[in-house]
């Protein structure tokens, strides 16, 4: 496994404010301050697939009732999530389940590096929240037709699933309900831009996810 210093995907890195409106840092600060007032049982953390989930009805129906916080930021790669979690976002909360969904934005990184980044996050969560179960979601396929990123994401999932088997406090969940059709295509009815989920696709993804989270919460009860 790559050490943190030689794997860029596992080196905590804040997002640089290239555009000039400081939005990434604003969101990070909001998450830190949210975490001071609330006592979530469940925390979702990751990229836009996490962040956008909060904007649809399915969040209100399935996850709000479980007392869930959403710390997703669009565009985040593993090193950005790692920075956020080591800079305040976990300091004031004690959720029983942390759902981690990240990896698709790690452009330029090899599957082994991305896996290293995900495992670094899993370990950081375990260090700070030793009571929490970390549920890692598989990275979804992307692009309308077969392409190298699909292969990369599938390989990341294989590697991560294997590493998580050794851990008692973490597990892997493949939430892809079969977005890739037999002809290799992905429909815009599921991924409207061949990356992000439509509300109907979120419904399909969240069914098994919700079941699993509930089961983990029940298992956690004293």
């Amino acid at each position, binding site marked *: 496994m790559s050490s943190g210093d030689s794997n860029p995907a596992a080196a905590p890195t804040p997002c640089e404010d*290239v*555009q*000039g*409106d*400081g*939005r990434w840092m*604003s*969101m990070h600060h*909001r998450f830190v301050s949210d975490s001071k007032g609330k006592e979530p049982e469940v925390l979702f953390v990751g990229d836009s697939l996490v*962040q956008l989930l*909060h*904007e*649809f009805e399915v969040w209100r129906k399935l996850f709000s009732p479980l007392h869930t916080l959403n710390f997703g*930021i*669009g565009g985040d790669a593993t090193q950005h999530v790692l920075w956020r979690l080591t800079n305040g976002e976990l300091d004031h909360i004690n959720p029983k389940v942390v759902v981690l969904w990240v990896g698709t934005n790690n*452009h330029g990184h090899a599957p082994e590096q991305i896996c290293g980044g995900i495992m670094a996050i899993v370990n950081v969560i375990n260090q700070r929240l030793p009571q929490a179960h970390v549920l890692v979601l598989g990275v979804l396929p*992307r*692009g*309308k*037709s077969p*392409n*190298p*990123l*699909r292969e990369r994401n599938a390989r990341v999932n294989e590697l991560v699933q294997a590493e998580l088997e050794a851990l008692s406090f973490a597990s892997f969940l493949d939430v892809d309900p079969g977005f890739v059709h037999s002809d290799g295509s992905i429909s*815009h009815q599921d991924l*409207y*831009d*061949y*990356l992000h989920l*439509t*509300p109907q696709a979120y419904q399909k993804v969240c069914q098994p996810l919700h079941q699993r989270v509930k089961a983990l919460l029940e298992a956690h009860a004293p």
Partner: protein
Amino acid sequence: MSHEDTNPAAMPEPVEDVQGDARWMSQHNRFVQECKDAEPDVLFVGDSMVQLMQQQEVWKELFSPLHALNFGIAGDTTCNVLWRLQNGELQNIRPKVVVVWVGTNNHQHTAEQVAGGVMEIVQLLMNQIPHTKIILLGLLPRGERQNPLREKNAEVNRLLRASASRLSPVQFLDLSSDFTHSDGAVSSRDMFDYLHLTAAGYRKVARPLHELLLQILEETPEEKQTTLA
């Protein structure tokens, strides 16, 4: 005002597939295909502000019934929209109204250049679809607090308002003031990442936009347009 040949924001340009999954071209090709089958009365074109609207309830409620097509692609600049419109996305369709919402992603360009790029899109639409009406949406404020991009977007809006007032088919609709509080802050209840709209944020835009669309659609072609933005 910049001449079209020297304004980089007015030069058509496709998005390069840097990531490796060709999503931009796939979306463009899908829109070109949609033009072959559909007969939209309303066409929405622009960036993620347009694209994400289609995933909200408000699209089904207010805009689908108007036979609207959504050709938004996240990340697009005026250059990208220009390229798409010149490369098939206007083929075979004659919408009565085109809603244009783009400019916030033109990071390499000045406010003057961005406004010039938007007006280049307007010119193209007026040439390609004579008699079509155009609604230009003002760029919304971005960022949690005051920052240079807010000033830039506001300057683009000032320039667009002035240009639109000179063209009778064009109306300018600026909803910026609905999104900043008295202290200048943008709420995450309206913009979950201080740029993109929540469902509540979209409702603030959709209501006045829908009203304006109904107004325009109800006017017959022979009636003189007298309402001003």
